[in-house]
């Protein structure tokens, strides 16, 4: 079984603090991490490999420093990693990103399963996984909270949807996106860390993946960010102390009435 996991490097939210005066996020020293949802994707791939054999290949499209994220994935146990990087990929929206990743997956070839995190915590779109699946014309199972069964050629999984779970079955190859419920990611082992240090991580540019220059980076991105701005700040609320609990609760119930939730 050949499994490809798509990951993204994102800024660590734990390093960020809110500046309440200006309503912007202030970062104290910048640390980047693997997108948390992608850790579940890596872990699930490793578990499937342990059960069925095969290899786990982790890919990422991003600037050269995204290599750190790929080394972390190898430290967790991934067999190989490939960084898809070039100035020409810069400014990609979800369409160009999913096209680029799908071209890399085609280049890898003979892939049985593609796993992505449900979404990245910086963009929050959840659009790249289904996009990859559309470009490859593969079946997709999004928001997977549990894999009930997987064999060489079939998968049965539970999709986490509003109010419950949808159980579906698909032939392989297919693309799945995973949520946190699916597993608890392992920590890198010492052996893994050594492998990560030694690993050669090839870098693929547009020619390596036969990418159409019109479909990558900003040139291949229909959406354009026109402006980025700070959200409106909420006005400070009223704070009640321990001896004002009764009064506070009355205010809460008044507010409930006013908001029409009673």
């Amino acid at each position, binding site marked *: 079984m050949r499994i490809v996991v798509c990951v993204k490097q994102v800024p660590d939210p734990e390093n960020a603090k809110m500046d309440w005066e200006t309503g912007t996020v202030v*970062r104290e020293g910048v640390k980047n991490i693997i997108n948390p949802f992608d850790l579940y994707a890596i872990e699930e791939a490793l578990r499937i490999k342990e059960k069925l054999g095969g290899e786990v290949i982790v890919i990422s499209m991003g600037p050269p420093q995204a290599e750190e994220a790929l080394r972390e994935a190898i430290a967790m146990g991934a067999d190989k990693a490939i960084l898809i990087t070039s100035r020409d990929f*810069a400014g990609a*929206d979800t369409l160009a990103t999913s096209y680029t990743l799908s071209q890399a997956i085609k280049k890898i070839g003979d892939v049985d399963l593609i796993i992505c995190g449900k979404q990245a915590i910086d963009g929050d779109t959840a659009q790249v996984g289904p996009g990859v*699946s*559309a470009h490859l014309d593969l079946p997709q199972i999004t928001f997977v909270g549990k894999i009930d069964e997987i064999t060489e050629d079939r998968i049965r999984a539970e999709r986490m949807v509003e109010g419950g779970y949808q159980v579906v079955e698909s032939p392989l190859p297919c693309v799945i996106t995973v949520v946190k419920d699916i597993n608890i990611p392992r920590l890198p082992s010492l052996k893994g860390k050594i492998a990560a240090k030694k690993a050669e991580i090839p870098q693929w540019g547009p020619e390596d993946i036969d990418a159409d220059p019109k479909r990558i980076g900003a040139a291949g991105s*229909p959406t354009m960010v026109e402006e*980025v701005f700070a959200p409106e700040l909420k006005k400070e609320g009223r704070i009640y102390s321990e001896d004002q609990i009764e009064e506070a609760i009355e205010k809460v*119930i008044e507010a409930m009435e006013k908001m029409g939730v009673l």
Partner: protein
Amino acid sequence: MDIIVKKEKCVGCVLCSNECPYGAITLVDERHELEEGLKAKFAVRLAVIDRDKCTYCGQCVPVCPFGAIEIIREEATFEGKEEYKGVMVFGEIRDGILETYTFELTGKGRELADKLGVPLTGVLIGKDLKKYAQDMIYHGCDRVILAEHESLEHFLAEPYTKILTAIISEYKPEVFIAGSTTMGRALFSRVAAKIGTGLTADCTGLDIDGEGNLIQTRPAFGGSVMARIKTPNHRPQMATVRPRVFKKAPEDRSRTGEVIKFPLTEDMLTSRVKFIDYIVDETSHVNIEEADVIFSGGRGIKGPDSFKMLFELADMIKGAVGASRVAVDEGWIPYSHQVGQTGKTVAPKMYLAFGISGAIQHLAGMQTSDFIVAVNKDPEAPIFKVADIGIVADLFEVVPLLKKKLEEKLKNA
């Protein structure tokens, strides 16, 4: 694509490098001349952008008071844009029932269509849809396209995608919106990629600019910044919209409109993914994504038993129960209740946080709620910064009293 720092405008302050989430901007010692009109003639430091780290997210551009940073981008091109006319809204049928947030979309869709001077078309996929087609007309649509078939009862991405792409190529809408639910996101992402157009996720604002483009406003980085996004050249301009943000269209039973049955082919109905079953999440009486009020518990709740108190409160007024990451990771409550960056994003009318300190990853999932109540023993807890009412006290004193007062209130009502 490129990003440049205009030397003559860069005074060497640190605003841009503080803002950059990727650490791509550093200030180097370099004496350079400044353009006329600035306070000084020279600056001794210059912002330098490391292109190996920059992702061109654009957050640095607006923070520079001198307009020194500019992003230069090539535009993507698209043929036949003018042929696309009209606004289209996807109505979500879940378990055979039209989700009522659909009327928020028809309300917003009506407004956009009127601004553009074009018709509003509703689209429904499922089985037995006639009644809902009429409902969509009463709530603002001029016509409704139905794709009806026994096999379309449950959402499956492949047939739904094939049907929507066929509808788009037949009717050529300029704007197409759906809800940013699990169905909306899974479906629209696949459709947009198949037809090669732009899609903006989870919008909280939609408007039309002077050139007739859809202006899509959405939170990013967990709501800590907002972005305005356009799809200037491609059509349709697709967006998923966060439920519970826009007002529902009022029902007007005097409205009339056309109902069109869309012809389906065998190929459109085939799906490699097969529906097997639907399992109801027994722990959630009310979905947290859809609740008007959420009672949420964190570390301060101390264990699974105390969540029962919150469920009791929630049941009294058809609310839902949420939880912080800590409470879920401790195993006190299932993941489906988790609010925050790695859980769900919610925006109820009222969010009550009990024993939640308010880490940035939690705030990201709830700070757009209309009214926030926070109860925490620690007066320094960041959650108080976003609270409309904050109570610095032991939640185990507050919750029983709140329950008692609420019971009295409901009895008298």
